[in-house]
């Protein structure tokens, strides 16, 4: 690792001030950033650790909306249970030690194309709350590792409208523990949302044909005959684009069947 300083602010305002230096970078749970720093793929002058910011931690629920602080660990979301599909997703991220440290804000800021939380946020139609504004998930996820976040902008919370039914199915890539393909399905009064992670070179995205079919008939059978094109899907040593395309339909059906 290159050398850098660490600051540990106690409030969002202090963190934002510390991040105004353009060579400063936010540090969440460090479960992605620290391995990146070890490989010298990033060279910040200063890391601003968000783990001491109490106002960014914790989970609350009001009026059908679950608000998860940006600094809340995967472990705490897993233990919460008030949005079952979200807690189950968090409980299956990585391993226990990763879940002790990793945070929802870090995962959503990073937007790894194989990460789990982006599928939950997009699939639930969540709102990403930052120190500056609120961004609808549909406008937030721009592409692989790309988001609508500006320089120094901090995710302070994520607001999830709790659906009638939802489920996340992850086909685990066993070496990394990330999703080879993961699908989040949510059924709300306004229709069905289907978000796919792990599959596309464009990162997390919605599968609109499946949404349409499921909005008419919320059953795995409604997806019979529906396939996704392998064009532009990720192909690597773990799976070809065709394999991933197949998995998208299979995981979507499983998520519909398991939704509760």
């Amino acid at each position, binding site marked *: 690792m290159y*050398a850098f300083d*660490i600051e540990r602010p106690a409030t969002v305002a202090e963190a934002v001030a510390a991040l105004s230096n353009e060579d400063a970078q936010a540090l969440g749970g*460090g479960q992605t950033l*620290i391995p990146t720093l070890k490989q010298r793929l990033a060279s910040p002058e200063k890391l601003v*650790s968000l783990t001491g910011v109490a106002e960014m931690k914790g989970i609350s629920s009001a009026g059908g909306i679950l608000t998860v602080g940006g600094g809340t660990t995967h472990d705490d979301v897993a233990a919460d249970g008030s949005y079952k599909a979200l807690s189950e997703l968090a409980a299956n991220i990585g391993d*226990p*030690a990763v879940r002790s*440290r990793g945070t929802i804000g870090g995962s959503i800021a990073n937007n790894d194309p194989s990460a789990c939380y982006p599928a939950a946020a997009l699939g639930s139609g969540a709102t990403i709350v930052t120190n500056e504004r609120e961004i609808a998930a549909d406008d937030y996820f721009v592409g692989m590792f790309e988001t609508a976040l500006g320089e120094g902008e901090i995710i302070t919370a994520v607001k999830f409208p709790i659906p009638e039914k939802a489920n996340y199915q992850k086909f685990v890539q066993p070496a990394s*523990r990330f999703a080879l393909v993961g699908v989040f399905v949510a059924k709300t009064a306004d229709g069905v949302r289907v978000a796919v992670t792990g599959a596309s070179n464009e990162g997390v995205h919605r599968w609109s044909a499946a949404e349409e079919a499921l909005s008419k008939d919320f059953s795995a059978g409604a997806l019979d005959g529906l396939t996704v094109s392998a064009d532009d899907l990720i192909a690597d040593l773990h799976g070809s684009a065709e394999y991933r395309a197949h998995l998208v339909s299979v995981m979507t059906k499983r998520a519909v069947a398991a939704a509760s």
Partner: protein
Amino acid sequence: MTKVTMTINGKSVSGEVEGRTLLSSFLREDLHLTGTHIGCDTSQCGACVVHVDGKPVKSCTMFAAEADGADVATIEGQANADGSLNVIQAAFQEHHGLQCGFCTPGMVMSAAALLKDNPKPSEAEVREYLEGNICRCTGYHNIVKAIMAASGQDVSAIAAE
């Protein structure tokens, strides 16, 4: 350099660290607590697992500065007060839960974290919990058996390998 103070295995410890000093480096290089092992550079092997404020953490994936004020437990603090092996360590010995021993400190610390939350885990729960602890020798079977035995469950039905 900044000064950090934390409790390690019940004792208050201070030291000077750089921003980039990992908790694992602080433990191993500054405090010579070399029981915590480093098996990878990618946060995947779990040989470095310690407890920070009661939770299992990969000490190679946390900065020492972030542990300022924390309560840290490492493998060196696991034995009983009289120096004898604790129940998990003794079960690893009894059931051949180790061969080269490289993964063992992390395995024992993960097992301790599991049994604290879930005193009587099923075999499947043990395997699931060890997802972040890689062993290149044992094939995991005897590690799982040792942890089941440490939880006081009958392991005679789990075949020896």
